[in-house]
């Protein structure tokens, strides 16, 4: 692999000035889409992603309905202006794949058996893309599902880690993704301590794999706190003290 420039400088800082264990700035706004039953807008570094949840609602076409549980349908889509060169709005191979892994990473958290014969639709629109948009999308979708009042075992938080300049770093951005050596997106349910998404693009030695996974899970835990805070802020304002107990 030929590398034109160093992605980590002599001080250990990455190209955007972060340390190896630092997350990009994450900001989540709950309830951004009024028409939806639940929604969230996430800014994850340069990513700007809108997630909207509809449902539980009637399934159309009816034959898709399941007698014992709810159908979860996900759509991940990048708008044409989300990248620097225009992106064809038709669903690409990559988008279809991300829609699928997103559904599979959210499904374990939802109590789908509570809503038999119904459907929950999750729409994720990437308005501006950076590296790690699937992680940001899953994070936003999970908050939107909670906002829609769907019963969940836990929120799903997602974050990537990867290898850049032979070092394992947290939260890969676009350049590090393209020029780095490995990218590992992970979705995680912190309370249940379960991984719901694990992908790896690149090569890692077994010990590097372990380190990378551990780092990504650490990142997920940080994201989880931001998710909870965003939901609290939306529903209960700044008064988180009431979380403690009022008698």
């Amino acid at each position, binding site marked *: 692999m030929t590398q034109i420039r160093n992605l980590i400088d002599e001080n250990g800082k990455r190209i955007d000035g972060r340390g190896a264990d630092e997350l990009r700035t994450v900001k989540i706004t709950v309830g951004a889409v009024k028409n939806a039953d639940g929604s969230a807008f996430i800014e994850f570094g340069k990513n700007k992603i809108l997630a909207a949840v509809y449902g539980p609602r009637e399934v159309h076409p009816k034959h898709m309905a399941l007698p014992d549980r709810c159908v979860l349908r996900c759509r991940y889509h990048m708008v044409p202006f989300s990248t620097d060169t225009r992106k064809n709005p038709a669903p690409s191979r990559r988008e279809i794949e991300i829609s699928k892994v997103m559904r599979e990473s959210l499904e374990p958290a939802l109590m789908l058996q509570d809503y038999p014969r*119904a459907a929950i639709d999750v729409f994720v629109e990437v308005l501006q893309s950076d590296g790690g948009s699937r992680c940001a999308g899953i994070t936003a979708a999970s908050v939107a599902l909670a906002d829609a*009042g769907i019963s969940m075992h836990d929120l799903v938080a997602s974050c990537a880690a990867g290898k850049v300049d032979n070092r394992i770093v947290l939260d890969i951005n676009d350049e590090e993704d393209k020029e780095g050596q490995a990218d590992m997106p992970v979705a995680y349910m912190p309370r249940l301590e379960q991984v719901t998404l694990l992908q790896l693009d690149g090569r890692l030695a077994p010990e590097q794999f372990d380190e990378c996974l551990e780092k990504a899970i650490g990142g997920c835990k940080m994201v989880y706190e931001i998710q909870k805070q965003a939901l609290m802020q939306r529903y209960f*304002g700044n008064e988180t003290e009431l979380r403690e107990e009022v008698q």
Partner: protein
Amino acid sequence: MHEVKRRYVVPGDKIAEGNFRPLMNVIKSGNALIATRIGIAETGRDGVKVIPLSGVYIPRVNDLVIGKIIDHSSLSWEVDINSCFSAHLPAQDVFGRDFSPARDDMTKHFAIGDMITARIIAFDRTRDPMLTVQDRDLGKIPRGELLRISATRVPRLIGKRGSMIQTIEQATETRVLIGQNGIVVVTGRSPEGVNLAVRAIVMVEEEAHTSNLTQRIKGLLNVPDTQPPQERGPLIAGATKPAEIESTIDEVEEELEVEGEK
């Protein structure tokens, strides 16, 4: 040891640990009780529950709902009850046991597009909910202004022992019919009164989670206040005043009787 403890929760939050019974929107995981929805968690004598603050309407037996006739077969009407399940009103419920599809004209009773008040008599999630109109004040709604609010806001709109809705009705000289599914019908003599009531209901829905709401509704409706006017609080102002929160929560949790009469 028997006082009720309350706190705000989001899905995945641990509410309590120990030998409690999980009630509404709570699951037991090992020894811990976990919230599954956003809302207000209550730990009481009989168990732990979460009063949800968001979500669509899921039918329950005995709920009084307002629905719209969307279709009919030869044996039943199909009713849209603002849920992911459409309800069925069997023709026998209206015509009696000796109903005959050949003899009786179903459109005479309810036509497509009619609004009805009905009670859910059966629903077990494996089949669509079944309705009845055989009770006092159930049946066709002849006129009124229709509104749709979130089903989670219905208890707040009714208020403690119907206080909120009574305030609105008296001040605007209207009748407000509330379905548990979040459909509200306002009727009244004067259009001004109806408009005012609609504005008040919309305000209740938008600001349901704030305290001092009754005061502000009274302000909107120009009802003389018996209590000294209080400042308009910030969102969840109640958190700074525990006594008020308590009343807010009480109103939310009130096991409500949705009044058809009045």
